[in-house]
């Protein structure tokens, strides 16, 4: 998604000027953006706390400020600066974390982002965006820019089925119809599940929805709630720990609305059960987040 992000940011700069700060990251990815922005592209160095305070200072003076780094370096290291300087002041600062979930794979746990939006959504005014596909970036960036408040963007790797056409971006999107269990997946995992289920029988395969914006506002679309009534089984799948995750938010919303499904499963990141490291695919499998494990747990026969 980094290339799509870079392209989208260049397009955005024409209509909504901003200052872009990177924590010394973007090699072989953000050079075109640096070229396009000139002095408004600033490498703030390996100093994320200052970078976020500077972004808040810029935003407090009327600028829109975007801050970019590997995800944990943008949400965990400078957390107090995000809390006090950005969110307490409800400033137009966008935090962009590359490598959501286990995307950095065998680079190790320090580079993973398993609790990013859960932590950040505890803060006032912030909205989190978890696009599922590269194609989403243009609309997501425009939506973020149009909302002059704190935001977090989790970038990952788009995983749409080969040759498939991605439906137009929306916070909630139906990717695949089906008469089986209802699956709501956050971010790129939605594409992985779509790929795994596309060839299954329409009557029994899961109905797959992609969810890309948190907190839960707007409410889930009526079509999703209707499908849930019929199916009675809801699974939320996210590459994020259960605590503070999308699954908890959706479960609470459904309970309050009196729409609790008969069966609810929450598939979430389990950390490092074996204490070993590998690719994103390896870690998803260890957490039971890979499509095969999810479908098996839901009693859906894989192709």
């Amino acid at each position, binding site marked *: 998604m980094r290339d799509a992000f870079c392209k989208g940011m260049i397009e955005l700069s024409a209509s909504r000027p901003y*200052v872009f700060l990177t924590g010394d990251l973007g090699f072989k990815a953000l050079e075109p953006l640096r070229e396009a922005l000139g002095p408004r592209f600033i490498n703030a160095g390996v100093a994320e706390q200052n970078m976020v305070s500077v972004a808040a200072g810029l935003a407090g003076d009327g600028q829109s400020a975007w801050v970019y780094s590997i995800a944990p370096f943008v949400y965990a290291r400078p957390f107090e600066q995000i809390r006090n300087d950005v969110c307490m002041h409800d400033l137009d600062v966008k935090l962009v974390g590359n490598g959501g979930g286990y995307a950095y794979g065998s680079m190790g746990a320090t580079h993973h982002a398993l609790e990013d939006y859960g932590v950040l959504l505890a803060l006032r005014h912030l909205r989190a965006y978890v696009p599922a596909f590269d194609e989403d970036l243009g609309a997501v960036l425009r939506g973020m820019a149009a909302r002059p408040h704190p935001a977090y963007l989790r970038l990952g790797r788009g995983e749409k089925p080969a040759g498939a056409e991605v439906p137009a971006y929306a916070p909630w999107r139906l990717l695949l119809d089906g008469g089986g269990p209802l699956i709501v997946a956050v971010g790129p995992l939605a594409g992985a599940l779509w790929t795994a289920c596309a060839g299954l029988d329409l009557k029994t395969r899961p109905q797959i929805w992609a969810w890309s914006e948190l907190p839960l506002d707007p409410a889930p679309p009526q079509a999703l709630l209707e499908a849930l009534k019929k199916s009675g089984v809801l699974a939320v799948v996210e590459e994020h720990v259960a605590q503070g995750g999308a699954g908890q938010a959706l479960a609470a919303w459904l309970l309050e609305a009196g729409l609790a499904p008969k069966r609810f499963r929450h598939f979430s990141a389990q950390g490092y059960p074996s204490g070993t490291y590998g690719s994103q695919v390896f870690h998803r499998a260890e957490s039971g987040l890979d499509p095969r494990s999810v479908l098996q747990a839901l009693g859906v026969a894989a192709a």
Partner: protein
Amino acid sequence: MSIEWTALIRRAKARLLRMHFEAKIAHLGGNLSCLDALLVLHHEILRPDDVFVLSKGHSAGALYIALWSKGSLHDDQLKQFHGEGTKLAGHPASAWHPGIRFATGSLGHGLGLAAGTALSRKLSGKPGRVYCLMSDGEWQEGSVWESLIFIAHQKLDNLTVLIDMNGLQGFGSTREVASMQDLASRIRPFQVDVEELDGHDPELLAKAMGSPRPRPHFLLLNTVKGHGVSFMENRMEWHYLPLDAAAYEAALKELDA
């Protein structure tokens, strides 16, 4: 028209003491050490396009008094200091007064906020200078050094940083806790302009603050915690103690002496 500093400072100190006495609230020592600088800044230096960031948020009382002395806060507002439903919290809140842009209180944030504001003016070409008041103990925060590197590298010559070198921090002197007494020699190599001066001499303060340099400007203000009240001067406990009636009366008498 020149400002009668002695009378202004006396009046501001008395009002600061009264505000803290009525609210039964501490932090007097660090308010008294920086009050003179804040008065000079607000009366002599700040212009409408300028921005001030109070990085040592625990000196909110001194900031409120400086704003009061300029007529932009009123007596009835000061009476709400630390009260229920107040805007005048113990550390400044934002979005209620044009002279307080950022909420502060956790140390190590203000310098980066000031740097971002100064950078904004550079990029936009908008006028105005940025001023930031820090504590000396605050320089133990790593984020401050990140900001210093950034300020020097970005050549933010539209930024003036005041450091209240009162030498005392939360649980000891800066010398005992982290040997910060020679801060000037540590900041100077970053290719910024560093000056040390008496932080209780309004004429010197006005001259130094009003003389921008071609590089980011750092003014290390040699100050006394609890300045002007003998039994508070250089006493760490006045970071924490509220004033009782007897101490309040005694302090006022000293101001009149």
